[in-house]
């Protein structure tokens, strides 16, 4: 794979000599280091070096443009620490075809805009929560901590847009490509509890002479398995809105376990589901008490969403059911005190399940896919982000607090400092708290202090 990157670099550099005005490129070198707070002396959890290179070639002015971006990273922490060794193969360097982050051709002509190739598409207005933003699978090997552009796994697709009138757009997505979402492997800092619990159960049963047959049933790259998406965006007055529809296979595996004699069979499935949704945003521009406030929101109805179920007391899954769940969010943004920006979000994930107390219904309790812990019928999720800037934008502090009503969450303060116009240093902490069966609480022993140094060119 390295050789492809070097070929790409050579291609870009040689092309530059012949087509200075048509070709432009940029890139970055970045180091990310993190240490577990519980043991600052030696618990290195990340020593990642990342190189990124992007190039754009204007084949015919702005009408026809080719764009590509490649990325390679290597995490030395997986070589340096015995504890992480087990995950080295999965976590130590870039996986699969993830190195190619973008590779597409843009065609613009009047009301038409086509983007054909490997890309990512972001829908919705929510920050840090994927309510409508589910076109691309996600890479959660570092949980939800990286930027969303690094979390989304790009796919090959046709992104066709038509604008019938000013400020409106109809977008059709045809995605014949399919990739599985990624999760951290055993031994890595952000391995999900559901994975470790399942592995522990497997090991226990194997010691008792049971055998396991794990079958991965990926979605084949066939026309009838393609993902389809449709988004209509328009403006009424000064309210922007979208209507969305997505027909897709789930990208996170849903396990079905069966036992025959002493043999366990695990089928890892990716069932089909549909999203019907909408989003909006509005800034109050006219004088009045609301002036300066931006309201935004998402709503999604997940039809046949594969949801784990089980007993809330045993905290173990019995499989999944295809339920009709709902997820909505409202966000409020406002600038205040000259240089501060505040952003608050409230969302509810409303899960279809039977009521507590009915014995027969206990088995239909929804389970958290990250932990196999029980979920509430209505999960209330909040986030608050404050950010500012000082010294002519050189110093930018921010703090993000995301939490739920189950007394679990994450607090992430961070400071960026612009050393030069090409070199930025970041310093931050991720502090997790809560019950180990909750999404954030499961990492309460993985609180980390981190630094990042990025050079762009």
């Amino acid at each position, binding site marked *: 794979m390295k050789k492809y990157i070097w070929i790409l670099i050579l291609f870009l550099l040689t092309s530059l000599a012949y087509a200075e005005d048509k070709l432009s490129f*940029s890139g*970055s070198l970045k180091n990310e280091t993190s240490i577990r707070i519980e043991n600052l002396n030696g618990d290195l959890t990340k020593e990642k070096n990342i190189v990124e290179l*992007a190039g*754009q070639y204007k084949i015919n002015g702005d009408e026809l*443009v080719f*764009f590509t971006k490649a990325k390679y990273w290597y995490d030395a922490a997986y070589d340096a620490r015995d504890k992480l060794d087990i995950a080295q193969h999965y976590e130590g360097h870039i996986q699969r075809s993830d190195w190619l982050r*973008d590779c597409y051709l*843009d065609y*613009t002509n009047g*009301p038409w*805009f086509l*983007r054909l190739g490997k890309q*990512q598409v*972001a829908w919705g*207005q929510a*920050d840090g929560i994927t309510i409508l*933003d589910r076109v691309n699978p996600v890479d959660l090997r570092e949980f939800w901590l990286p*930027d*969303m*552009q690094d979390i*989304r796994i790009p796919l090959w697709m046709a992104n066709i*847009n038509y*604008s019938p009138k*000013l*400020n409106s*757009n109809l977008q059709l997505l045809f995605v014949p490509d399919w990739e599985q979402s990624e999760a951290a492997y055993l031994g890595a800092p952000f391995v999900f509890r559901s994975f470790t619990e399942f592995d522990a159960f497997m090991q226990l049963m194997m010691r008792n002479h049971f055998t396991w047959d794990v079958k991965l049933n990926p979605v084949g790259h066939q026309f009838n398995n393609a993902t389809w998406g449709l988004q209509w*965006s328009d403006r009424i007055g*000064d309210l*922007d809105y979208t209507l969305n529809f997505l027909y897709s296979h789930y990208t996170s595996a849903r396990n079905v376990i069966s036992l025959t004699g002493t043999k366990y069979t695990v089928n890892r499935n990716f069932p089909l589901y549909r999203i019907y949704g909408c989003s909006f*945003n*509005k*800034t*109050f*521009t*006219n*004088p009045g008490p609301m*002036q*300066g*406030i*931006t309201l*935004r929101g998402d709503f999604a109805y997940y039809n046949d969403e594969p949801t784990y179920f089980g007993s809330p007391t045993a905290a173990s899954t019995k499989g999944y059911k295809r339920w009709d769940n709902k997820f909505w969010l409202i966000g409020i*943004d*406002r*600038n*205040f005190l*000259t*240089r501060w*920006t505040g952003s608050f979000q409230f969302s509810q994930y409303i899960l279809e399940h039977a009521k507590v107390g009915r014995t027969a219904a206990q088995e239909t309790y929804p389970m958290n896919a990250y932990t196999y812990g029980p979920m509430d019928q209505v999960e209330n999720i909040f986030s608050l982000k404050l950010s500012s*800037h000082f010294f*002519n*934008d*050189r110093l930018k502090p921010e703090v993000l607090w995301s939490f739920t009503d189950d007394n679990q969450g994450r607090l992430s303060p961070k400071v960026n400092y*612009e050393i*030069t*116009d*090409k070199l*930025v240093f970041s310093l931050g902490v991720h502090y997790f708290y809560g019950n180990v069966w909750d999404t954030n609480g499961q990492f309460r022993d993985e609180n980390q202090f981190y630094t990042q140094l990025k050079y*762009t*060119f």
Partner: protein
Amino acid sequence: MKKLLVLLAAIVLMANIGLAAELEYFQIYKPKEGMTADEIMRIEYFVKYTLFAHDAHFEGKALFVDKAGSVLEKTTLRERITLGRKSDDIAYKDLVMFTSPQVKGLATLTWTYMNPKRQQDSWLWIPSLRRIRKISAANSDDTFMGSDFTVEDILTRRFDDETYTLIGSENFKGYTCEYDKKTYFKGVPCFVIEAKPIKKPWYYSKRILWVDKDTGGGIYEEMYDPLGRMFKTIFKDYEIINVNGKEYAVQVLLEGKDLRTGHRTVIINSDIKFDGGLSEDLFTERALMQSRW
């Protein structure tokens, strides 16, 4: 009946005064001797926001220089379409794309309304999210892109935000720009105007402006804090660009100095094009969505 006619006549007269005071888009205005401070300042704002042109294209860079001489540079590409459209109240739309490495791809789309009390609408393309975010209008007294200019210095200050007094006329003493060490506008005839903000308390108590009698462009201003101490100076150099026989006065160099910190910002506009026939389709969310970096 007589009273009613007098009242009607007064209303018509006031309406006409109001219309006369509002300058028509796509025209070129120059200040004249005998004009009031208000009339001169309407022209100054007209020139500042290039409302004489249908569209504009600027490529430029901003240099941030601290007291020790350390320099940060950001490059931008800016496009504007002037509409002056009463049906949806839109005065003009701006698209600013950052082209320097660290912020490459970051782009903002801003719609400015004709109603002076109405805030701008802004959308931001955030490369790290690969998404468009509607953003709340920045506070007017916040710094513009980390520069020594405030948001209102560059974008949001309108004619109706201040009251004006004509102090007099004089030949400008000249300004020696720290960026290129050249002395500009020495001996150029100017109107001197005092502008006081309506909003109180505010971060400045008054501005003293020197407005070029030839172009109507504000070439130099001093800003005073609420205690009456000068804390900032802003210098603007103009170039006359001939477009289809019309002479447009355009800002090509701005230097803002914060006298409290010793920090200064230089904005240089180059590759300026007017009336190139930019389509309004370029100033939409979909156009932002097409960002690649």
